[in-house]
């Protein structure tokens, strides 16, 4: 009997997911032994035509990392969906857009300007921007079309499973891989989260939690938090309460606020939930004040919360209720 087939693809993402997969250690050898790797551009030379040549459903397990940022990502999403029995959105980009999804706060034109023109380290004198189509001696060549809106994988094609995390924790990947290798049954497919918990991160965070009364917010560089005490109580916007558990609360344990990379809990909008929660524990604008004074006091505290979009939606913007900002490009 032929070995089951394995594929991994890297769309709009940083590559951390691939590294994290390799972080499973020696287990990767078992994967290699158990599976026939049929497509994994990061580690072996495969061409897209190879995949196109496979019969539909040929790939038993396909781990897809990266968001859908351009026409190439989208094409491969459709292709791999067609060719895969089990398609897994692997990591935060594929699951919910992650950092590439923050491009949805602006326009491509503005992004291009920032990268190729306004950046201090770029020579912008020649005004060189990537050209969608270029004429070369051999003829006309084109690059993939950049979409204005970054999407998650499941906004483009149906996915069977989701492994959250930026990147997914190696031990969680290992647990999933072991389950697959040992032929243990996975939960029913259909965008099902695997390799993570079902409760918020605080569940596995050992820091002591007390009643919260926030009088101002801090960015991580502004304070050295008291070890052993809930970071949110200390004014660091720890996303733990609105974030799925699974990582083992690694960041809060070393004094770094949870940024929320494991994404929201089932059916929730992570940023909205956390914003509502944070707004509920701001200790300002006491009832002895009139409405205007209350509003002023609360606004003063909220002003200390810098970059709310990047704080609350760092990973989940493209997959949130809002998905993207409606922006008018002033330069257009």
């Amino acid at each position, binding site marked *: 009997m032929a070995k089951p087939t394995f594929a991994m693809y890297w769309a709009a993402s940083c590559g951390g997911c691939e590294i994290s997969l390799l972080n499973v250690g020696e287990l990767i050898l078992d994967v290699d032994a158990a599976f026939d790797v049929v497509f994994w551009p990061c580690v072996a030379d495969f061409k897209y035509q190879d995949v196109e040549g496979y019969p539909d459903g040929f790939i038993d397990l396909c781990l897809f990392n990266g968001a859908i940022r351009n026409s190439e990502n989208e094409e491969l999403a459709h292709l791999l969906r067609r060719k895969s029995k089990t398609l897994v959105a692997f990591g935060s980009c594929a699951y919910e857009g992650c950092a590439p999804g923050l491009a949805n706060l602006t326009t*491509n034109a503005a992004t291009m300007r920032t990268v190729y023109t306004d950046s201090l380290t770029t020579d912008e004198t020649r005004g060189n921007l990537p050209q*969608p189509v270029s004429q070369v001696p051999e003829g006309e060549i084109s690059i993939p*079309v*950049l*979409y*204005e*809106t970054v*999407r998650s994988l499941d*906004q483009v094609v149906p996915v069977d499973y989701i492994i959250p995390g930026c990147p997914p924790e190696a031990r969680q990947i290992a647990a999933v891989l072991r389950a697959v290798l040992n032929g243990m049954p996975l939960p029913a497919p259909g965008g099902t989260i695997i390799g993570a918990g*079902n*409760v*918020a*991160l*605080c*569940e596995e965070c050992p820091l002591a*939690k*007390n*009643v*919260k*009364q926030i009088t101002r917010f801090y960015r991580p560089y502004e304070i050295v938090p008291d070890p052993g005490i*809930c970071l*949110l109580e200390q004014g660091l916007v720890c996303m*733990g*309460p*609105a974030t799925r*558990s699974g990582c083992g609360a690694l960041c809060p344990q070393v004094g770094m606020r949870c940024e929320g990379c494991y994404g929201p*809990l*089932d*059916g*929730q909008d992570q940023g909205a*939930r*956390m914003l*509502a*929660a944070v*707004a*509920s*524990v701001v200790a300002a604008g006491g*009832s*002895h*004040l*009139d*409405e205007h004074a209350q509003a002023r006091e609360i606004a003063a505290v909220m002003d200390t919360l810098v970059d709310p979009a990047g704080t609350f939606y760092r990973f989940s913007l493209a997959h949130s209720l809002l*998905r*993207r900002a409606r922006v008018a490009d002033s330069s257009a």
Partner: protein
Amino acid sequence: MNAETPDRARHAHHATPGAEHGERVGVYVCHCGHNIANTVAVEEVAEWAGQQPNVIVARDYKFMCSSLGQELIEQDIQQLGLNRVVVAACSPHMHEKTFRTACQRAGLNPYLFEMANIREMGSWATDDREAATQKAKAQVKGAVDRAVRQQPLEPLYVDINPNTLVVGGGIAGLTAALELANAGYHVYLVERDSSIGGHMAKLDKTFPTLDCAACILTPKMVDVANHPNITLLTWSEVLSVHGYVGNFTVRVRKKARFINEELCTGCGTCVEKCPVRIIDQNFEVGLGYRKAVYRNFPQAVPKYPVIDTEHCTFFQRGKCRACEIVCPTDAIDFNQKDTFVDLEVGNIILATGYEQFDARRVSQYGYGRLANVFTSMEFERMVNAAGPTAGRVVLRDGVTVPRRVGIIHCVGSRDKNHHEYCSRACCMAALKFAHLVHERVPEAEVFNFYIDIRASGKHYEEFYHRVLAEGTHFIRGRVAEVTDAARGPGEEGQLIIQVEDTLIGKQRRIPVDMVILMAGMESRKDARQVAALFGLGCDYDGWFTERHAKLDPVVTMTEGILVAGACQGPKAIPESVAQGSAAAARVAGMIGQRVMKMEPVRASIDASSCSGCRICNNLCPYHAITFHEDRKVSEVITALCQGCGACVAACPSAAISGAHFTRDQVLAQIEGILWDARQPEVLWLEPQ
């Protein structure tokens, strides 16, 4: 046949069954006479609703709240087997109960009913028929989509503690306390000051009958003090309130009086012998003196004095003890400490009253700068026979009798710079003052400077005519300033009132000896703290918000907390008394039920989803959330929860859910409302 019979209800729009949820919804669109139908195309909304998924029948009808309208719903529930009902009409505050009851009569759980408010939020908000109709459709769609997800709920029952707390011992609070006590229920009356009586105790006469205020008030005060069903706690303040309707626990601080109430006979010898004399800013509004051990007035209830530690020589310098020496019963106790009392009550009536507007804030009228400018309360004390001048009308020097008196209306009221509202009582008080000046100084001339005379009350207009007939001058115009800068020989040494007489269209300068400023009423400085303490709302001006301005004026949005008197808005004595009685009647009615049905709209925490982050722990205004340290989860105590939803919104893990407002219900309603919203384009190609 009556044209209003249900048979004639137009357009019964039947849709094909085959509902995605299998629920059978009836939609009823109300015309509300012309209130809705003039702006919303109600027939069109009903017809459209009839075509929506799950909707079995949709009708429009002139008055859904009429008994015929309700019967229409009941018939459809029984004949068409409806299991969800949506009425698009007015605010749920108005008629949700009506229709829930109708559903219940027809055998449908009342919590399977949903209301779309297309009147207050639709037809009354715009004249644009097309937009209002479109919005009504959206609201109906939202209500239908929510209704199909609703779950039947059973009400909760709680026992009602028959004791009542009344906060404030002014005329409104006294009335409420006496009514309840007379009905056989126990009342705790908490008063911040050393005596009950409130503002009314300072007054001399009351308009328009000119009854002596003390003569009608002090018997009530004595009744309160002696009533077996009333526990009087003066010199006391409410510190905290926990619980919910029927079962409040209230902590009261009894401030130390330094008088042993068991021993004190109220003889007043200590007051007499106390060597410290200070200006009484409270009861005598700065016009008279009191001692360091004092009673506000001789008929004060209770009769025990209090020692003012800030001015008492013993407390300041450790010497004196004159009162202790002279007290025949050894009732002086310098070691007394504040004590705390916990009260268990079922209902709370707030009757915390008002404060007088500080006339200094209208600086052009010179109060505090020009000696002979008085406030209305100062004048009340002056004309009071028991007051600092024993009822003589004199200038600040204490001897000169004024010949010409100017009374300025609307100081701080009806003034965009201060309070836009009318303080209601001051016009009549001003007329009373005019009468009293004439009575005490028959040769005096009195000028009233008014914007409008507001004499709308029983026998008020007649009193106005009486004062007119007595020769009081009425000058219509808002006074520009009161000054002592004379422009000519006729004005020297007098106060000049500069005013535009709008009836003759001329500027006038009227020299007078005495000016009385009719300072308006404003909410107490700490009204917002008090509101927060008891969990009720304040309006912009700090007046406590009633449940319904017309139909439910003494009940607040917080069950079991009622309001009476001027804490709810400016009021004169008769209205305050009426409200005190009304609040008492409402409380008595509730106590009579013994058990109270409570909305089953409650929050609950799914312990398996709770991560123990504790964000919800200090949000609950009813202290209904407790944290289990051992299991690291929070829990809502259902009996304490009032279903406000603060914790539901705040829970970052969505572990808290509110019955009747579950996430899927609310999101379905939102999506229903947005039924015609354009799908957002999520994908734009780079323009080439």
